[in-house]
Structures are given as structure tokens and as C-alpha cells.
């Protein structure tokens, strides 16, 4: 069983994902269990969704979200939700927003 979710990009990250602001995904965890985490999502985004070769603008040290990119889970700061270990629920809306661009 996989969960479906919406992933949104803003703050310039759209450029790494074929200029899409929002995509719908169906996601299972890497170990086949029913509870994919944000960490699973990030791997999937890097391996299957990203259209740019500049992966380092999104992740560092493997698959860790780069500092300066905000992650909001249903509009809540991921720091309140366990960050990469958060278990994604059916229908979740997850936003990756870069703060790295000029203003």
C-alpha cells in the first residue's frame, strides 16, 4: 500500500523540477512498509522527479534537505513534526520552499 500526497515547490526550487509548482505522487517506503517518511520522499524526488542535474541545490550529504530550504507539512514547520522521520499520511501536502534566493 502506498500513500498519495501533493508536493509543492517554491522560492526557485520549481526550476529543479521541470518548473512545476505542484505534483501529485503515490509513495511507498523504500523498505516496502506502509509508512513512507519524508526521507523516502526526498530520495524519490531526487531519483525520479528532478529534471535538473544540479541536485546539490536541493540536497547535501546524500539525501538530506539542504539548509535554507523550508519544509512545511500541511503548512506546519517540519521542525515540529520530526523532520525527515515524519511518517507521511494519506493526502498530506508537503511544501519545499527555498529561502536562498535574493529578495
Amino acid at each position, binding site marked *: 500500500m502506498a500513500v498519495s500526497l501533493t508536493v509543492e515547490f517554491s522560492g526557485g526550487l520549481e526550476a529543479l523540477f521541470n518548473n512545476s509548482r505542484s505534483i501529485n505522487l503515490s509513495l511507498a517506503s523504500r523498505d516496502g512498509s506502509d509508512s513512507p517518511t519524508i526521507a523516502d520522499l526526498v530520495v524519490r524526488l531526487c531519483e525520479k522527479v528532478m529534471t535538473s542535474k544540479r541536485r546539490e541545490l536541493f540536497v547535501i550529504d546524500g539525501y538530506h534537505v539542504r539548509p535554507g530550504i*523550508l519544509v*512545511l507539512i500541511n503548512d506546519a514547520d517540519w521542525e515540529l513534526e520530526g523532520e525527515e522521520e515524519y511518517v507521511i499520511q494519506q493526502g498530506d501536502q508537503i511544501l519545499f520552499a527555498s529561502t536562498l534566493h535574493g529578495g
Partner: protein
Amino acid sequence: MPRPADSTQPQAASILPPRSVPLSTTTCELCHIRKPFLRRPKTGQKICQPCFFHVFEREIHNTITSKNLFYRGERVAIGASGGKDSTVLAHVLKVLNERYDYGVEFVLLSIDEGIRGYRDDSLETVKRNKDQYVMPLEIVSYKELYDDWSMDDIVAQIGNRNNCTYCGVFRRQALDRGAKKLGIKHVVTGHNADDMAETVLMNLLRGDTARLDRCTEIVTQSADSPVKRSKPLKFTYEKEIVLYAHYKKLDYFSTECIYSPEAFRGTARTLIKNLETVRPSAIVDIIRSGETFALERKKSGTALKLGSCERCGYISSNRICKACVLLEGLNAGRAAVQVNGVGYEPDEGAALSKRLEHLSF
């Protein structure tokens, strides 16, 4: 198990409180009613959206009043790029001006550097902001100010290496000239806490001790500019600016300039963001350090003599202002292309940089 007083080994498991004590609160730490939505980087507090809006706006108001940034009846231009910082700045200033009755008249002032695919799009955002915030908008372009040179033309001629130098010098003067055109003596910009920390770090790494304490000043009035600059978002974290813009659904534009950004600034920026992850207060701490570092000044022999540029009449401590020095090089290059049909000498860029270094900034 009691922890031995002299232990130097971390014993995480044994020093944690018993499990019956909740490790985190489930309600906002300010109102104790609603669900928290974010953790404030500055304080670590977990707070809800309404409380966030309140403290975010209140802190900027406190900065404005404690530093006496504005006076009643003042006309102030907001340097507006259409990006997140200046959009949040314009929005918050409008809210605060009404809520606390500052009696200030705000105008949006935008610079059109002439960068297709970047500035033309962000200017569309500013034009919408003009209606959203009901503020007049003035746009001044490099092309009209600088002998018909847009940044696109400049990069086509000098290449992609020194272009930030040109853009920086030109923008500074363009903001002043725009303000002058509007009869305004005060420009506010959207520089945030992360930008300030980044600049402190860059000055430190460059050994630029003269600018180290100056760069954190909230109001700058430099000798070679007739216009006062101030930074009401000086203590506002970039993370909170982005969250505020997101939660308030503000209309802003986010794309990086298409020309290569300064590599050094980018490195400093990455370092700041990495530090923030480990220690969120690092950003305000660096600003505090910058503010407190006041190095003894060498006694300068001659006081800076102010005059005006022989070419354009702009206020300058040199015979010819920085912008005109750059323009001279550009125009010489353009003439060479026209006369000989040959390209611009690459060495000329380096020579110009050298010449600029000798001018006082």
C-alpha cells in the same frame, strides 16, 4: 540513576526527564490555545500562525520606534524588487503605518537593471504590489540613467565575470537618483538578519575591518550619498520572512538573477545556513558581534572632501564618480567595437576593477 558530577561522557538516556513529563508542548507557547505551526529560529518557541503574525509585526514595529526610523509626515521610498524581502517589507510597513498611525507616506521605488527573463518578470510583481498596497510606484532604469546601457548590454560586452560590480555601483546610484526624482531623502530596503550576518562574515573573512562595525548599522548615511538608507528587517530572520509571505499568501517573485552571482557571497550564505541549522541564534549572534566590534581607527591624514562628479554632477568624494568611471570603460569598449569591429579587450575589465579599488567606497 544519578549522574556522576565529574562525568565527561554524555549519558543522554540517564539525564532525560522521566517519560511522564511531556518533552514538547502541543499548544502554542504564547497563547496556549492553538496548535503550533512553526518554531521561531530566534527563540526556539513553538507558536501558532496568529501569534506568529503578531510577534513578527510587533518586532519590526519595535525596531522602527526604538531606532526612531521615521517621523510623522515623512515621505519614504521602499526599494522594491518584487522579491520576498521587499514585498514583506512593503506589506508590513503598510500594516504598521495604519495600525500605529506613523503618519508616513510610502512610495515604491524599483530599479530596472534591464535583465530580460529576470527583472522584467519581477517588475510585473511590483506593478501588482502597487495596486495591492495602494502605493505610488516609480521605476528608474539603468538604460535611461547610464548612456543607454542595460545590464544585458553590459554583460554582452564585458562577459559574465565582473558584472555584479557594475550592477552594484549602478544600483546604489540609481536608488539615490530615483529618490531624488521623487523628492525623497529616505530609502528603506528589505535586508534581513541573514543578509546582515552574511555581510559581517564576508567583511571578517576579507579583513575589511573598516566596514565590519559599519555594515550592521540600521541607518546609514554615507558621505557620498544624499539619501539616508535604513533596514527595518535587520533583525528579521529569512525563514520567518518566507513563512510570513507564505501564510499571508503575498504575491512575490522568486528567481535568481540569471547572471552568475558572487561566488564569495554564496559561500558565506551557505555557511550561515549551515550554522543556523546547528544553532539558530547564530544569525543574531553574528550581527551582535558585528555591532560590538569597533576597531580603533587609524588616524586618517585628510578628511574626505566632498564634491560632485565632473561628468554627471552626482555627489562624490572623487573627481569622477564610480558610475562614470565604469561608464567610461563601457563606452570606450563600445567605441572600439564600432570603429574596429573587434571585441572588447578582456584585460580592460581587470584594469577597471583596479582603478575602482583606488577610489574610496
